[in-house]
């Protein structure tokens, strides 16, 4: 029993943290919010250069062949800066799915950072995250994995999520378009694993979002004065933020354990992913509400950056299954 990451895993996360802190600044997030670009392309390229984008691809496809224990901390860092880029979709979900099904050309391109791969697990292509900027789209239905190339679909409409940096596209495509990458039980298993990776990566990002929201609220409460004292001296403010600290401190171990279970492909992996996503969703939403309450009116404006993190937390708390959905999944596994 050893519940800790390796030095290499921690060092990689530290390096990514440094890069994102320097490169993925709030004004870069704003640029995506304002529609200047669909994701932070320059940051994405730098992440690709570091090996982050393709870390889940096999070495043969230019990747690092890494698993969830190697990447889960990186997603916390992505959450900490509210990274507006398809790290969950492309790196955690699409690349390993295609790689496991032997689809190497697309994997190689995605791993290099040159093109992004979007994925939908719904029965339709009406809400595809990053669908408007993807070179390829994976459509997973029941037990079929279909890969649409750039010529196989057109963007009908872009629907904003509450996180304006995370846009969903409605696509037009033919039912027979693209290429069937896998079918039958093998495909169904691969889809289930892909879903678990998506929920796990989202849970890790939610932890990072929550940590930033907490840190921002602590910072504000330390310097904002009312009645002649910093508002952080008030017990009500202290207890709001202590509650956030507690929620996040118990979400992270669940997320880390879920990463281990997914990495080890244990029979309980989906249950652990669901526990992690449920806890992390609730913790990040709690963090958003308490951070807003501590900031007061200033946090309630469009200009102030707090909303970039809050709204990403709200969107991610719902994406990949909300807390109620995942608790039902745990209940079905544990209670029958």
């Amino acid at each position, binding site marked *: 029993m050893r519940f800790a990451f390796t030095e290499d895993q921690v060092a990689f996360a530290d390096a990514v943290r440094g890069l994102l802190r320097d490169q993925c600044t709030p004004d870069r997030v704003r640029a995506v919010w304002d529609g200047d670009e669909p994701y932070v392309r320059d940051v994405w390229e730098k992440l690709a250069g570091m090996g982050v984008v393709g870390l889940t691809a096999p070495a043969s496809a230019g990747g690092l062949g890494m698993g969830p224990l190697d990447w889960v901390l990186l997603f916390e860092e992505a959450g900490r800066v509210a990274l507006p880029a398809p790290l969950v979709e492309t790196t955690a979900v699409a690349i390993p799915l295609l790689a496991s099904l032997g689809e190497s050309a697309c994997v190689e391109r995605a791993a290099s950072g040159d093109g992004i791969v979007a994925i939908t697990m719904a029965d339709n292509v009406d809400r595809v995250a990053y669908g408007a900027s993807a070179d390829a789209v994976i459509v997973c239905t029941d037990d079929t994995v279909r890969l649409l190339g750039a010529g196989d679909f057109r963007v009908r409409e872009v629907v904003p*999520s*509450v996180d304006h940096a995370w846009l969903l596209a409605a696509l037009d495509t033919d039912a027979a378009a693209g290429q069937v990458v896998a079918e039958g039980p093998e495909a169904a298993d691969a889809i289930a694993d892909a879903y678990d990776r998506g929920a796990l990566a989202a849970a890790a990002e939610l932890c990072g979002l929550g940590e930033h929201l907490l840190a921002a609220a602590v910072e504000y409460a330390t310097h904002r004065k009312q009645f002649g004292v910093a508002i952080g001296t008030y017990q009500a403010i202290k207890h709001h933020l202590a509650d956030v600290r507690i929620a996040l401190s118990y979400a992270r171990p669940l997320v880390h354990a879920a990463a281990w279970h997914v990495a080890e492909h244990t029979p309980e992996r989906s249950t652990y992913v669901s526990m992690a996503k449920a806890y992390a969703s609730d913790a990040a939403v709690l963090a958003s509400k308490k951070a807003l309450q501590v900031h007061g009116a200033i946090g*309630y404006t469009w200009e102030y950056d707090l909303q970039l993190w809050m709204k990403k937390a709200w969107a991610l708390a*719902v994406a990949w299954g909300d807390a109620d959905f995942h608790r039902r999944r745990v209940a079905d596994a544990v209670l029958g």
Partner: protein
Amino acid sequence: MDLTWTDEEEAFRAEAREWLARNKPSEPLPSGDTFEGFQANRDWERRLFDGGWAVVSWPREYGGRDASLWEWLIFEEEYYAAGLPQRVAQNGIFLLAPTLFEFGTSAQQDRYLPRMAGVEDLWCQGWSEPDAGSDLAGIKSRAERDESAGGWRLYGQKTWTTRGGLCNRLFGLFRTDPSAERHRGMTYLLVDLEQDGVTVRPLARLDGDGAAFAEVFFDGAFVADDDVLGAVNEGWSVAMATTGSERGLTLRSPGRFTASVDRLVELYRSTPDPDPLARDAVVRAWIDAEAYRLATFETVTRLAGGARMGPESSVNKVFWSEMDVRLNEAALSLLGPEAIFDDTPWMKGFEFALAGPIYAGTNEIQRNVIAERLLGLPRR
């Protein structure tokens, strides 16, 4: 105890309902907190005034119909049940007007009330400042005496001024006695925003509505003596009457929540295979709204008997603001994966509701008031 309406009240309700049904805009109104949507709201509220429904509880001479508090509640129920939005005139008619009725001279009442009801003047509230939020007594904006002009010159900054960029007038507190501190030496002034020495910078709200707030900067703007409301240097006690209204009855009539919860029930009924947890959240919201409605009836019975709102308005404010958040969360939870989208009425409602625990005195401050003034716990 009698929880039925009189025949007269039922007739009033029927009249209001019919008028609203006939006259309300055929399409839902855009947000009145945007530069694009404001005028349509103003036009609608003018129509309301022309029909005699803008300020039902005011005297007829100012555009009202001398309605009782009960009739006002009925009107609000009908107004929100018709799917109509919060009024762009609300800070004037609900916050300033009660103070004007109580402290204003008849000249002030004649000058301002009809234009306020008729949305010719739009009023915003100048309370908060960058360093004076929860700590309202910390305001620094000042009014300097200009004896020769017979009035006051304003300097300083207000902020979080609701729809400040759309209003032509502001009511607010300014320091008139530089030697006084905290709650003393402030005066309640009625300010024309359309003059030199006033700069208004709009601020967009969390939900993106661009005209929702403003910062208002004063640099020598003038207020004549006859625009002082109440006595000079007595502004704090004059203003407290208004914040009582803001927290208490008028800002959040139960009709708003019963209408919201009715829409929530509709959403529930139209949701295929709803989760039992969502069912529980919906029924809790329904009970909350009913509790709020009944508690309001109790309050109105007391007010009709001559009582005044005291610190129990803080109980009210905490309750409705947190109920509103839960109500919208219940809807988002029903929406499931669809809860992710922007610009749905429920996401908009959730974002709007999140302001409730912050404005009009944060809920932390309100709970202090409840503990100290209602329960009698010791201040520090």
